[in-house]
């Protein structure tokens, strides 16, 4: 087994990488657009004189003279079929997608305005660039010119505005509606010209570029009538030939895709993509026997089973997915910060990571901010301290006049190795004076009561920015919705509000640093580690990337056979 190099969570060394020649100019330019959204001067720093729009049609191709670090032309091979195992269900209106598998189908033929890469940095894709006003309430989106749909029509602002209208139409039922709460209504979307759209937000929102890569947010053709299988029109590199729910999906290569490959001809390199609908157990067996080339989102047990297979390459990637040990701060004994802190001190993080996730992840502090978030401020990982925890608990018990051990019930679901975490914690917390009873149900059983149990382990999915999670789960307004702990803190909220309108990453890191401290000091959650996810693909496929949200990005994958 060959393990591809892991993408480092620290994301802000890009400029240095560029100077040292590790990152080519195109990459740096995209990165500069990210930072320079309100600081267009960044373009000058990159030493790029040409108007970005002029090179848009070839933006995906390396500008040959850049760094010389590119692979020699001719090294890539064209052709071949790639087969994946992934469950396929209802697919009609992409804006209505509520499952990543469906988005993995749609993204092969439809594209997003932006793209959040495996390094968790968001860059323009169909957009040429974006600009935000200083108060982060006005966003100017500039489309690349010369991009064509696979029916020959040009991509213009009309298509984008039509698509945004679909997101915001309650009758369509898109989760983009909730995500773009800052946008409010389609009246706030303004067409400046054919390639320039302005979003006039009602409240500041720095997460617009990330939201535009939320998986239902593919750009549709302006004549779309509600069923992508019947109208497979998009700007993407592949064309849908067949879609059968619960059976398979098949794509063939498009000849006139707008991005060019390393050999100067249009992408993609592969001729055909086939998705076969199986469950994950069958997917593992099919990978082992060589019937498929990859599977969607392997579970830890699948990773264990496939580890060591000679012809597979396992690519791990850090994510902001985690199993949060969360405590209801409105209920005894968790309303007392000493008890919360004591339980947090009982986490032997390295051991928990080993037991619950085979060591495949990054250790975490007790805050819902991940190292992969761009503005994360580095903090030391707290050590396992049962004696300190015991001292805190004894103080609490003496005050309340109760006897140790403190009996508590830990609820969770039997889904993604939560039981292993719960069991490990039970044993680690025993010397500190906790007597933990486990209450483990099927996933559906836990999701019915996840906001209600007093102590629980909840799995949280990846979100590209830390403020997105904090706003969703740790504010007063979110009680009754996603705030499962009922915790909010005035200082924290104040910092969060500032962070939500701070575009500059370094300035935001200062705020994150204080928010992380507050959560560690008096917050409602313990968090031992951030999960890795894996892309496990047959080794002859090159340019494969592992994405934190298990997306299949296939435009420049090629088969060395």
């Amino acid at each position, binding site marked *: 087994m060959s393990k591809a190099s892991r993408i480092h969570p620290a994301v802000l060394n890009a400029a240095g990488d560029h100077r040292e020649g590790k990152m080519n100019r195109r990459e740096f330019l995209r990165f500069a657009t990210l930072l320079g959204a309100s600081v267009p001067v960044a373009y000058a720093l990159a030493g790029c004189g040409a108007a970005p729009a002029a090179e848009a049609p070839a933006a995906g191709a390396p500008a040959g003279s850049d760094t010389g670090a590119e692979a020699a032309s001719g090294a890539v091979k064209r052709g071949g079929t790639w087969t994946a195992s992934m469950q396929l269900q209802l697919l009609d209106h992409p804006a209505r997608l509520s499952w990543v598998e469906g988005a993995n189908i749609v993204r092969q033929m439809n594209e997003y305005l932006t793209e959040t890469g495996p390094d968790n940095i968001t860059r323009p894709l169909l957009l040429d660039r974006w600009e935000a006003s200083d108060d982060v309430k006005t966003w100017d989106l500039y489309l690349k010119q010369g991009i064509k749909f696979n029916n020959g029509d040009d991509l213009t602002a009309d298509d984008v505005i039509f698509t945004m209208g679909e997101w915001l139409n309650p*009758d369509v039922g898109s989760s983009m509606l909730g995500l773009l709460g800052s946008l409010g209504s389609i009246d706030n979307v303004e067409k400046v010209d054919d390639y320039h759209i302005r979003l006039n937000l009602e409240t500041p929102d720095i997460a617009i570029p990330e939201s535009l890569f939320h998986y239902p947010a593919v750009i549709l053709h302006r004549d779309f009538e509600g069923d992508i299988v019947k109208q497979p029109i998009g700007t993407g590199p592949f064309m849908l030939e067949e879609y059968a729910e*619960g059976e398979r999906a098949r794509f063939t290569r498009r000849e006139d895709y707008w991005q060019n490959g390393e050999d100067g001809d249009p992408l993609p390199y592969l001729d055909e993509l086939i998705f076969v609908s199986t469950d994950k157990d069958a997917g593992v067996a099919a990978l082992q026997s060589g019937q498929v080339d990859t599977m969607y989102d392997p579970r830890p047990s699948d990773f264990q089973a496939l580890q060591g297979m000679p012809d597979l390459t396992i690519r791990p990637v850090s994510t902001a997915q985690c199993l949060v040990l969360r405590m209801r701060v409105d209920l005894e004994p968790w309303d007392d910060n000493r008890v919360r802190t004591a339980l947090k001190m009982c986490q032997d993080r390295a051991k928990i990571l080993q037991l619950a996730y085979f060591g495949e992840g990054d250790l975490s502090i007790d805050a819902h901010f991940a190292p992969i978030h761009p503005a994360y401020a580095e903090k030391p990982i707290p050590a396992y301290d049962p004696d300190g925890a015991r001292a805190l608990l004894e103080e609490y018990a003496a005050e309340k006049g109760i006897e140790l051990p403190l009996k508590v019930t830990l609820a969770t679901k039997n889904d993604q190795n939560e039981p292993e975490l719960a069991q490990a914690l039970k044993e680690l917390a025993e010397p500190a004076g906790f007597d933990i009873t486990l209450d483990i149900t099927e996933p559906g059983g836990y999701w019915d009561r996840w906001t209600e149990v007093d102590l629980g382990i909840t799995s949280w999915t990846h979100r590209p920015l830390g403020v997105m999670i904090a706003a969703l789960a740790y504010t007063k307004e979110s009680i009754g919705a996603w705030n499962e702990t009922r915790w909010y803190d005035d200082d924290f909220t104040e910092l969060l509000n500032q962070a939500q309108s701070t575009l500059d990453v370094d300035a935001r890191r200062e705020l994150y640093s204080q928010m992380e401290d507050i959560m560690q000091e008096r917050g409602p959650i313990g968090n031992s580690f951030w999960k890795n996810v894996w892309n496990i693909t047959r080794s002859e496929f090159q340019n494969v990337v592992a994405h934190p949200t298990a997306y299949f990005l296939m435009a420049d994958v090629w088969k060395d056979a």
Partner: protein
Amino acid sequence: MARFIVRSLISAVLTMLIVSAALFFFLEVGSGDVTVKILGIESTPEQRASYRTQLGLNAPAWQRYLDWLAGSDWRAERAVGLPLVTVRNESTDEAEWWAERDGELVRWTMRDGELYQLTRQADGSSVESPADVAWQEGENGASYFWGVDADNNAVMWMRGAGETVWVRTKAGFRKEGDGPREYIPLRKGLLRFDAGKSLQTGRPVSVTLWPRVRNTLILAGLAFLIVMPLAVFLGVIAGINEGTWIDRVISIGGLALTATPEFVTGIFLILIFGVWWRVFPAVAIFTSPNAIFEKPMLLVLPVMTLTAVELGYVARMTRASMVEVMEAPYIRTAAIKGMPRRRIVMRHALRNALLAPITIIMLHVNWLIGGVVVVEAIFGYPGLGSYIYSAAIFGDPNAVEAAAMLLVIIAVATRLIGDAAYMLLNPRIRYS
């Protein structure tokens, strides 16, 4: 015989009615909000309510059951006031609903608060023109119109109701007080061979169900064709050699195979033949609709698994029956009068010995069809079993009902065939 068949058919229809009603109401009570499953947990209550209306799920359960059984076009026709007809769309191969007015087929669509009429042309396309319809007076000065939309629903459009909804325009969306208010999804009902639309796939059930039925019938049929002759042969061999080492090997081997559940046999077969030796495909990966014919090797391991489980049971049954017959006086008489042993077995013993197993065998067709669920799950085989399983988990009434009705039909048919075969083998038996 004719009376017997008629009686069987009547009982089959009754069974189907009872099963379908029971299933429908169990699914109604047992499964959660299906719009959450479709739209995801991040959808808002308003979005879910709107989607429920679009799916026609706000109608009472008894009404939806009747729609499922007998169709909804009756009541939709009353609302619309025009005959509703279906036309097959050549490009998608799915049925489309149209209203018939003055010899023309028409539908309607609303944009920017204006209603447009789509008139179907001979080539299947449609021509759009401003709608010339009579709006009826509703409450609060609003007016409404019942028509057919482009998504096969009877729709009530509202004008001047003053509520805020989003209306699609060419360049995006505009706020309007007008729009669709009520939906009746159009369907013919099972009695007219329309199983309706699956909520899980968004397509007509028949489109997704038939390939699954075909796959399961091929798998079960192949297993049947291999198991039954083999099992009967082994059973007869064991039976006429009662007490010898051949009998012991067959009996104990059969018992061992039957005692091992198919998920154990299946996993071992996958590991040995699929993963270690790689001689047969480990799981059933269908890379094309007809993969089963292009790569018949896909079937090897699932059929072997089914064979292993079925073989022992039928073989032991045949053996017991054979032993009993071989001890009968008429066999002894035949042997005493000097008839060759082969002739005794083939002419006199076999026919009587097969009477008991034949019933078991026909009952086992049902078992095979239903029991392949486990085998289909192990091998990721896209068959009827996995179809029902996923539909039931999702809470997709139309899909579950259609599959269940098929299973009832198969059960009744195999029983009929079993009874007929029994009669042929034993002329003393008469059904009336």
